């Protein structure tokens, strides 16, 4: 057990990732407390997605550890990590276009309870459709529940993508640019729903975003990455006022 582990859901320390000569992530440490919305910002190619992929077992980190509720989960497979309660989205939209909205959510939730055998021989649904419908209601996708995901607008698909990450009752969710490419109207409802996720359901999550207004108004705390390192950390107001950040990121 770690000193900070008391209330840190996720704790990343000294994480590094090298691709040959490229050092994409160079010793990043941070922790996320329960009920927090942490923002991660930084210029293109500064290592944000690579950081997520190392935390989530998609890539093997070159060094460093990842702890979930104080337990070392470094290098676990993505599916194991997910079943232990870490949800995620990818930078590029990844829903299942041929499945309906409800089926996408059922799929996202089905592996979180019971055993493989139970899933084959047990009750077909086991409350999954109801859980999916609650998520559909929460994200206000009711009118689209039975529509194929591939037929939804881009913004609606991004909303579904995020909703899928919250299925199965995760302890923390990592969202990689949830607002990327989403139009203004949808952006408002996306932010509104994510905020409600946190306010009403106490969800903890980390958001990578380029949209400053989105990050600053949604997050409780922000980390600025530059060239694979943490450049600054603080409340949105503090980060905004930091001259180094101005220079490295906001200023250009």
């Amino acid at each position, binding site marked *: 057990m770690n000193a900070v582990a008391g209330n840190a859901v996720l704790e990343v320390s000294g994480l590094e990732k090298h691709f040959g000569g490229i050092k994409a992530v160079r010793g990043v440490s941070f922790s996320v407390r329960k009920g927090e919305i942490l923002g991660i910002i930084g210029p293109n190619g500064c290592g944000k997605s690579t950081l997520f992929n190392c935390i*989530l077992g*998609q890539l093997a980190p070159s060094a460093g550890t990842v702890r979930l509720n104080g337990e070392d989960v470094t290098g676990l*497979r*993505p*599916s*194991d990590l*997910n*079943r232990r309660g870490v*949800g*995620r989205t*990818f930078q590029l939209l*990844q*829903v*299942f*276009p*041929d*499945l*309906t909205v*409800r*089926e996408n959510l*059922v*799929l*996202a939730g*089905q*592996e*979180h309870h019971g055993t*493989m055998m139970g*899933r*084959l021989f047990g*009750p*077909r*649904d086991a409350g*999954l*459709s109801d859980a999916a419908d609650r998520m559909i209601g929460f994200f206000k996708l009711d009118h689209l529940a039975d529509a194929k995901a591939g037929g939804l607008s881009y913004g609606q698909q991004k909303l579904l993508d995020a909703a*899928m990450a919250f*299925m*199965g009752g995760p302890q923390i969710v990592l969202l990689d640019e949830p607002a990327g490419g989403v139009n203004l109207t949808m952006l408002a409802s996306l932010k509104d729903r994510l905020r409600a996720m946190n306010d009403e359901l106490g969800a903890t999550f980390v958001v990578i975003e380029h949209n400053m207004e989105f990050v600053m108004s949604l997050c409780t705390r922000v980390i600025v990455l530059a060239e694979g390192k943490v450049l600054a950390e603080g409340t949105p107001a503090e980060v905004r006022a930091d001259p180094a950040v101005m220079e490295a990121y906001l200023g250009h």
Partner: protein
Amino acid sequence: MNARTDFAAVGQGAPRRALSRIDPALVSIVLAAAILWFAPVGMGRYGTYVLTLWLVMAIAVMGLNLTLGVAGLKSLAQAAFMGIGAYTVGILTAKAGMSWYPAFAIATLATFAMGIVVGFPALRVRAHYLAFVTLAFTSLVWLVLRNEEWLTGGTFGLSNIPRPTLFGARLDDALSFHRFVVVVTMILTLAIWWLLRSPWGRAFLALRENPVRAASLGVDVRAYTLLAFAIGSAYGGMAGALYAPLVEFIDPSPFAISASFFLLLMVVAGGSGYLFGPFVGALLGVVLPEWLRFTGGLYLIIFAAIVLLLLIACPKGVLGLAEMLWARAARLVRRTP
């Protein structure tokens, strides 16, 4: 293979809707079995044999359809698993005097277990690498069947494979064995139908569509990949276990590499991923060669050419084509008041 077809069964996840009316696929399976039970009446020995052969091939294709069509794992080993099933039953019944039922169970378990082993390469690199490994496995099995004469009879094959008995009566005549195969086929089709409606079916589909996203949602890609491979292989084994007593004589030739390609073509031609695709594919695969018999050894090439043309016209196979035409007709009907 870009046929992103849904299993008609997959995604009827909400039992609220599923229970409110009986699944048409279920009705079709039982109805088709009833029709096939009586179909050979007046057909003669040979006609009945072809009909039975069609069902046996359909079982093998059904297995490959699960592995390839639903889970997206490109296997070229299905003929080998069919061969292992056929020889297991052939050796155990004809040589060791075992009854068909335990021999069938052993063939099923053996091919299931081998499916897990052969499926391992699928965990590393997908697609082409897997195709090569499974191809190598098929040639290895074929070589063993041909060379280990003490066990398999080599090129002379195994003869006098007995038919199973049922309630003490041997199913020696073509009609009663056909009916036996109809019942087994119905049970195996129902099992696949049932499997695909379960969360496993959804996980297999997710595996094919987007394994990375599936893993991020908790889908154990390793376990499901091996299971899709093993179950598909076991279907190949069970088809072989029925094939041996059907033809009563087996040699290695029907289980060579070309047969694996042929089975793959049947999956694609019938409609990759569709529940009933294998029956259409196997029908093409069993009946067309009969018609193309006059072309001699060219029938595989001609069959491949026909499949190619079919796929250019409709990448989703015969059932994909039917679905498209049906949707178009439905739209027309709706438009005319």
